[in-house]
């Protein structure tokens, strides 16, 4: 009797709980995965050519050949939306990575060394933050002319202060923890302490924040492309498609709602998944 009782697996309930993934995680991940695959392999999808115009078939309503209908030049809205989503995803990820790398490095240095370095870096960040972000983006884009690289750079630049501040705040508190002192007592160099002791402790919160920022970047790109200040045509962009077809909103709403739906679902998924990730990381940190 007693031996049997002792053998009851104690960890069983935890294992059951772990295997059930909530819908608020699985649905966004599913959409983002599908979006990523569709944009990467769009050339192999059984779809009409997104660039082929057909003036005989303009503003056609959705049908088996054109699932989202056609636009004012007779092009397939679904195929163009997928290509537009590719731009959104590339810009979203690229600009966040840029902001993450530059802002993270600045925040790490400024939080770890403090003093004068910290003062100047923080001042520079405040300077960037004091510009209205979209106005700054419009200014840079209209001055230098639209291109993919420049959109990524511009939006990324706007993320630098946020990443720098979060990294700095976390670094400040981590640098005072005893394990950093212990690392120093081991004879470690500052650079090594930064990379091996502090950076790994920062990555998790930054990734969750970064995911939310990808959504912001995608909206930012859509706003710029709506104004014609993102990747230039003939490359379709979600914002550009909405801008071009908005005059036909009453006759052919699908030409506007197709790209809008893609934008909406992607941003929603990123926000929900990012929130969930953030919550999990917070829980884990609380447990440590």
């Amino acid at each position, binding site marked *: 009797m007693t031996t049997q009782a002792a053998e009851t697996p104690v960890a069983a309930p935890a294992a059951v709980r772990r295997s059930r993934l909530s819908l608020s995680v699985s649905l966004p991940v599913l959409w983002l995965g599908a979006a990523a695959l569709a944009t990467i392999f769009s050339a192999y999808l059984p779809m009409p050519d997104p660039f082929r115009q057909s003036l005989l078939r303009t503003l056609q309503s959705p049908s088996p050949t054109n699932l989202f209908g056609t636009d004012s030049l007779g092009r397939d809205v679904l195929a163009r939306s997928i290509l537009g989503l590719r731009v959104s995803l590339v810009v979203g990820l690229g600009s966040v990575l840029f902001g993450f790398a530059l802002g993270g490095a600045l925040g790490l240095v400024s939080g770890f060394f403090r003093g004068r370095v910290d003062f100047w870096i923080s001042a520079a960040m405040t300077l960037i933050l004091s510009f209205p972000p979209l106005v700054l983006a419009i200014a840079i884009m209209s001055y230098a002319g639209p291109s993919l690289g420049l959109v990524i750079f511009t939006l990324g630049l706007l993320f630098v202060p946020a990443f720098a501040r979060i990294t700095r705040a976390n670094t400040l508190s981590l640098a005072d923890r005893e394990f950093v002192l*212990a690392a120093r007592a081991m004879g470690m160099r500052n650079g*090594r302490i930064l990379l091996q002791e502090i950076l790994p402790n920062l990555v998790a919160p930054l990734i969750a924040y970064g995911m939310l920022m990808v959504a912001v970047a995608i909206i930012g790109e859509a706003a710029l492309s709506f104004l014609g200040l993102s990747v230039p045509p003939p490359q379709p962009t979600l914002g550009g498609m909405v801008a071009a077809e908005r005059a036909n909103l009453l006759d052919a709403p699908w030409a506007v709602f197709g790209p809008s739906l893609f934008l909406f679902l992607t941003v929603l998924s990123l926000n929900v998944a990012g929130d969930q990730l953030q919550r999990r990381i917070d829980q884990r940190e609380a447990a440590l």
Partner: protein
Amino acid sequence: MTAGALLSIRGLKSYLRTPRGLVRAVDGVSVDLAAGRTLGLVGESGCGKSILARSIMGLIADAVLDKAGGQILFDGRDLRGLSEKEMRRLRGREIAMIFQDPMTSLNPVMRVGDQIGQVLRLHFGSSKAEAQRRAVELLASVGIPSPERRARSFPHELSGGMRQRVMIAIALACDPKLLIADEPTTALDVTVQAQILRLLREQREKRGMALILITHNLGVVAGVADEVAVMYAGRIVEHGQTADLLRAPRMPYTAALMQSAPRLADPPHTRLQAIQGRPPMLIDPPAGCRFAPRCTRAAEICRREPAETTEASGERRWTCWRPLEVGHA
């Protein structure tokens, strides 16, 4: 003083720059420690013990530390004269340190084995595999069961006592000549404290390294240390062989510290004798003996002039105008 001293601290002054003024945290400390010996450094919180330890390790930022004077001779070299690069080579390899709170002294996102291996790779350039193998050996030598498995654990999977053992393994990894343990047992359960102290004593004997044990617990000192230095307000006020000093404290502060701890031999319901007041602010310390404001034996001269140090046979020293008679406590 002693010719064969491994560590010889001479008139060391470490002042700290703070917004409220210069804190004289270590103010003229002299102490020697021979290889293979254990020095217990005792005193209340805020009396400069940890600052002394960090001064030896060179762990106080230059922006904060005012090296007001004195020497730290380690193995014949003055550590105060070494560059940061030379100090780095010494830290962890020849002088190692363990800290009070094992819960926060380990990197939470790095496996325990990697943290031990890290020191070996840093100082000996060991390969990853070699470092990992040594890490497992070290874990075994500090008494951690199933070391292969534990090497792959993260710190939060270990208990406080286990973590302190891991810290000790990291400190011992490079076979240091001197180990500084800053309140190594304060954050642990009493039963675990005894185990950790036994481990420290065993390892010290096995490796023949010197040990500085910082604590505010005289019981800990009695069990482990060969000699004791009592620190108060940035100075060493009494020094001697452990047994001599505990049997016959001469400085009233030492006696007061001993009386403020409970003893099993006392009759039931004995009142503990707390020391009145708190240690002085070290920005503007008292002019005379720094303990005078709290001392029950203080006289006119104690408040007016700094006490002189009396030296007796057997490395016995005390700094007091009106020392207790032998046999008092």
